[in-house]
Every structure is written in structure tokens, then in C-alpha cells.
């Protein structure tokens, strides 16, 4: 009996477990899935919690519900991965698992301690993240009682999970305070280490225009050096200092600590991965998916979904001793919520930046790209249902995994 070991039962690990169980011969393969937590979080929903639009409980479900019964699901921390020996050491019962194939899906977490002063006095008092369940819930309590002042949104450094989420937060804050009738008492400042609103030129220009339209001040090229909780200021290395009443922080994102401990990661604990095949650059029986990789694609659920299509074929061919057929093109599709009734859609890849046009069918769409639209927003809302009921369960999705120029304008 051979062992297929999956580390991490988030979006990527769960989706791949569901795909593998359908494609691997159960008389030959045993699939083991390891995670340290019992709950699965619908992370795109974290954005809506601070504004009270989602109740916290709608984004949480038991992981077990999405894992096929014939997969062994182990709850444990991972102590060490030893890829040279094809072995993983777990914390629970000091269990050692010898694997034939390994899939790393350990994701990324925020690290506020990487920014000087961020975790001092103000953390979860008037400095919050919204990339964790706890952060989003705590921030919702704060916002309810916030009646005016300056909100600073800060991205510490790239890459981050869901690079559009900070923009969405700023857009939604504008909408939220308008609804409460106190937008004139709230100043919103968007500080980013990038030179504009987004990483790619066309989207950066168009999203930059949306920021201006919503009266959100952008502070570009802002590399945060320090947060001072007693003065309520955030400073940059080039000497800028901004006061805040509320700091919404997107701290440094790093891969799992076990990746670093095991000597498998780069400077941010992301695993060096072949960007086309999603195989580890160093070990042939190690595969990597989603936020855990260092590939230059967005760290987002849609990317994981597209990657999974490539990965399953590559894994099966490798097991059969055939050459790798599939190659991932960096395809990402992101909804950018710009208010509680509108959103923008972007669709891009390693080689092609987000462009205007319609998606997925030329002329018809129905979703316009890079343009605020109510239909896009309905698409974003329906995604929660799709995520829980289709995506996680590895059920094929009616959108092609490969990036296409059809419907896009250059």
C-alpha cells in the first residue's frame, strides 16, 4: 500500500483530497490529510464581518464535512518535514508518516510581530487585522462604536493573500460610513508599498480612479518601518509619519513555520515551486498548491481552483511514470467589492495583466471586467454557496481553468 500525504486541509488540501480520492486506486493508495484545526473558514467572508454584513458563524464549518470518509483525517501540528527521507513527523502521538507522494497545502498566515511596535499596546484595541477570523470579529466590535476619525489601511509588504482585499476594505469602509451618515467625519487613508493601487498597470490605474472617486487618499511607496501605539502613528522608512485613530493592518504574510523549520522555504517560508508544473523545485515526489508556493500568481482561492486542475493531472501522470502534461498559466479571477451593491471583476495570468472587456464569453459576458457592476456583486455573493458546495468538494466547475484572451480588450 502506498501513501499520499496531504499537509493542510484548507481550500487547496481539501479540494485536492476530494479529487485524489476519485482518481487514485483505493487498493493501491491510502490518502492521509493532516491539519491542526477542526474548523474550515470561508476566508473571502472575513472581509464582510467587520461591517456586520456577515455574521461570523456563516463563514465557519467543520472541516470533516468536506473530507471524504475513506480519507484518514489527522488533527495535529506538524513538527518536521524530512523530504530527503520522504517522511513527516507529527506532534500528535509523535507519529511518523512515511509517504510516497506529498502535497503541501499549508497556506500563509499574517505576522504582525514582523512590524516594529505593531503588537504593542494597540493590538486589537485600535490596531486590527481582518485576515484572521478573530481579527475580523474584533474589528466589527470596534467599528460599531467608531463615530469619526482617521482610518489608515496599511499593507506591510508583498506578497499578501488576496491582494485586492485591502482595497475592498477601503471601498467598503467608504460605503459603510456613508450608510451610517457619518462619512464626512471619517477620513480614509490607503498606505501601500506599491507605487499605485494594484500591482499591474491597467488595473492600478482603474482602481486608483475608484479610490479617488470615493475620496480615499492613497499614500504610495509607503514601506512601513514602525507603529507607535502610544502616539497612534505609523511611519515609513523614508520618514513619513501618519496619525491614525484606527489602523487596519495587513501584516507580513509568511508560509507555515514548519516549512522554514524543515529547510524547505524561501525567506518568507514559501516553498520554491515550478510555476508551470507545481512540483517542488527540489523533490520530485513533493507537490505544492495555493498560498504555500512561491509562484508569481495571486494567493487566492480562484488560483487554487485553477491550480488543482493542473496538479491532479501532473500527479497522476507522475505516478504512472509518464511525463508531466499539464502546465499552470497563473490564471486568477478576482471579484473586487466596491460597495455593498457593486463589485469589479478582474481576470489575469502570469503573462497577461488584468484588462477591460467581458468574462467569460466574448460580447455576452455576463460579467464586465474592471468595471463596477451589480451583476458582478451578485456573482461574488453567490460564490460562498459555490465554495462550500462545489469548489471544496472538487466538483468540476463550469469555468475553464486555462486563462483566455477571449472577450478582453488590449
Amino acid at each position: 500500500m502506498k501513501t499520499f500525504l496531504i499537509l493542510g486541509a484548507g481550500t487547496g488540501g481539501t479540494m485536492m483530497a476530494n479529487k485524489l480520492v476519485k482518481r487514485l486506486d483505493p487498493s493501491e493508495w491510502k490518502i492521509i490529510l493532516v491539519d491542526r484545526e477542526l474548523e474550515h473558514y470561508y476566508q473571502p467572508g472575513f472581509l464582510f464581518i467587520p461591517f456586520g454584513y456577515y455574521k461570523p458563524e456563516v463563514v465557519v464549518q467543520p472541516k470533516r464535512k468536506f473530507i471524504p470518509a475513506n480519507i484518514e483525517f489527522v488533527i495535529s501540528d506538524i513538527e518536521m518535514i524530512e523530504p530527503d527521507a520522504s517522511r513527516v513527523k507529527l506532534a500528535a502521538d509523535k507519529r511518523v508518516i512515511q509517504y510516497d507522494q506529498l502535497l503541501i497545502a499549508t497556506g500563509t498566515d499574517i505576522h504582525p510581530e514582523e512590524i516594529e511596535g505593531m503588537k504593542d499596546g494597540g493590538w486589537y484595541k485600535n490596531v486590527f487585522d481582518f485576515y484572521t477570523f478573530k481579527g475580523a470579529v474584533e474589528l466589527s466590535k470596534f467599528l460599531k462604536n467608531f463615530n469619526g476619525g482617521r482610518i489608515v489601511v496599511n499593507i506591510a509588504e508583498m506578497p499578501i493573500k488576496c491582494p485586492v482585499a485591502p482595497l475592498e476594505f477601503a471601498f467598503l469602509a467608504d460605503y459603510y460610513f456613508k450608510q451610517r451618515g457619518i462619512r464626512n467625519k471619517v477620513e480614509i487613508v490607503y498606505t501601500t508599498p506599491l507605487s499605485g493601487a494594484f500591482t499591474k498597470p491597467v488595473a492600478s490605474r482603474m482602481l486608483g480612479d475608484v479610490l479617488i472617486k470615493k475620496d480615499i487618499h492613497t499614500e504610495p511607496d509607503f514601506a512601513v518601518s514602525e507603529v507607535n501605539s502610544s502616539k497612534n502613528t505609523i511611519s515609513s522608512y523614508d520618514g513619513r509619519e501618519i496619525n491614525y485613530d484606527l489602523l487596519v493592518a495587513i501584516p507580513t504574510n509568511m508560509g507555515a513555520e514548519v516549512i522554514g523549520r524543515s529547510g524547505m522555504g524561501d525567506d518568507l517560508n514559501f516553498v520554491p515551486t515550478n510555476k508551470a508544473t507545481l512540483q517542488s523545485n527540489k523533490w520530485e515526489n513533493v507537490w505544492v498548491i495555493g498560498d504555500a508556493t512561491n509562484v508569481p500568481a495571486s494567493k487566492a482561492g480562484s488560483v487554487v481552483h485553477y491550480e488543482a486542475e493542473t496538479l491532479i493531472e501532473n500527479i497522476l501522470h507522475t505516478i504512472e511514470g509518464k511525463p508531466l502534461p499539464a502546465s499552470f498559466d497563473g490564471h486568477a479571477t478576482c471579484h473586487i467589492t466596491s460597495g455593498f451593491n457593486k463589485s469589479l471583476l478582474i481576470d489575469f495570468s502570469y503573462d497577461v495583466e488584468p484588462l477591460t472587456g467581458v468574462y467569460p464569453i466574448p460580447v455576452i459576458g455576463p460579467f464586465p471586467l474592471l468595471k463596477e457592476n451589480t451583476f458582478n456583486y451578485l456573482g461574488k455573493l453567490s460564490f460562498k454557496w459555490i465554495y462550500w458546495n462545489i469548489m471544496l468538494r472538487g466538483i468540476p466547475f463550469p469555468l475553464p481553468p486555462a486563462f483566455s484572451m477571449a472577450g478582453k480588450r488590449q
Partner: protein
Amino acid sequence: MSVLDKVKFDADGYMEDSNAWTPEIAEAIAKREEVTLTERSWVVINYARNEFKVKGEAPTLRNITKNTDVDTKELYSLFPGGPGKMAAKVAGLHKPTGCI
């Protein structure tokens, strides 16, 4: 006549062929970008070139500060206005690809 006359740059001012780079070219690029190079700048430039040779891309700020004795604050004073991009430019490397 400047040493830069024969050097090819891309639209953003990064050298197209990093193999054509020489320390003299670095000095000339720095002058054009109004950056003064010191002994400490060269710690960064030499490290960045070595990293590029091994990994095929310019190192991130985090990588530089982790593997040299230059900290982030000093990096910003050595290469004002974006040390990652500026150091890569002076070291004759392609534009850093860090942003997604």
C-alpha cells in the same frame, strides 16, 4: 562620452544584459539616478549580483537584510526611494519581480 552610451536599458531603466555590467557602469547609473555609492552600497550591490547569478532574479529587501549586515533602515538611506528597485538598477539586474 559616458560608459553608459553603449549600454542597453529597458523602458524602466534596467540593464537588458546583466553580463555587460561593470563596476564603472554601476557608478555611472548611480550618478544618473542621483545616488552616491559608498562602501556599504557595494556590500548590497555585490550581494545582489551574487544572488542574481545563483537564483536568476534580484533579491528582495528581506533577503538582503537577512543575509548581509545591512538593515532595512540603512538600505533606505543607501538607495533612497525604493531600495529594492534602485539596488537592482545600479547592480545591472532586471526589475525585481516581487509584486503580484
